[in-house]
């Protein structure tokens, strides 16, 4: 299993879901809700994140290969967010710009950032950030 990094520091929760069949899409959705709840996202944002993660899971399922969806907290300065990511070896050799345009058109409203990192294999990363106030309150609680 590749260590999913991305540009931000990782923080708990760190969760993974193996996507093998359509049942796993529900599990991805459920796990994303749990991860986003642990970070303090509001219900509407949990709905957005779980929809983004389930859509990514559906996408990887269509390739016919078993993949893993990674869900982890991320830190950027004082801000905390949730990152959803997956290796996408089938995208190797495909123009990153074209992939990003397609992903942003489908999922851009659901998350704050969509990135494609690395080449061997490329990794799709999506991040939604808590507001500054919510991030501060999370740090205070911890």
């Amino acid at each position: 299993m590749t260590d999913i990094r991305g540009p931000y520091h990782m923080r708990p929760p760190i969760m993974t879901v193996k996507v093998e069949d359509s049942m796993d899409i529900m599990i991805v959705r459920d796990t994303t809700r749990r991860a986003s709840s642990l970070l303090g996202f509001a219900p509407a944002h949990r709905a957005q994140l779980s929809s983004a993660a389930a859509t990514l899971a559906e996408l990887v399922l269509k390739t016919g290969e078993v993949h893993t969806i990674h869900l982890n907290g991320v830190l950027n300065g004082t801000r905390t967010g949730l990152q959803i990511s997956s290796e996408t070896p089938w995208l190797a050799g495909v123009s990153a710009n074209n992939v990003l345009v397609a992903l942003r058109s489908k999922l851009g409203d659901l998350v704050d950032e969509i990135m494609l990192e690395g080449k061997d294999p490329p990794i799709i990363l999506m991040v939604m950030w808590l507001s500054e106030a919510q991030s501060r309150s999370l740090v205070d609680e911890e």
Partner: protein
Amino acid sequence: MALEVLLVEDSKTQAAQIKETLESVGLRVRVAYDGPDGIREAIENPPALVVLDVKLPSMDGFQVCRRLKRNPSTQDVPVIMLTEKAGPQATMSGLRAGADDYIPKDIFASEHLINTLQELGILE
């Protein structure tokens, strides 16, 4: 006295299941079987929460949610959309219509519904 939920759901079978879930956590449930009835019920006697299906006869759940959020007597009533339409577009349509949460009807739906009720302060 138990808080009252207005459930707007056209399928009697699904309405019975959702009602049972809500009653199991101590809530009282009124059911409306279409959008216009749901709006009328909500305005005449505002509930603590509306649980709203998307696919309804004569007026869909997005329209119902927008009407409730525009009406002064129901604009502050939380709305949870509980739906079979789970894609990114439908999710954003529900949230843009003013829904407080958008929950797909899958095997985890009851659990997510109860978690959201706690989050919204409907349940302790």
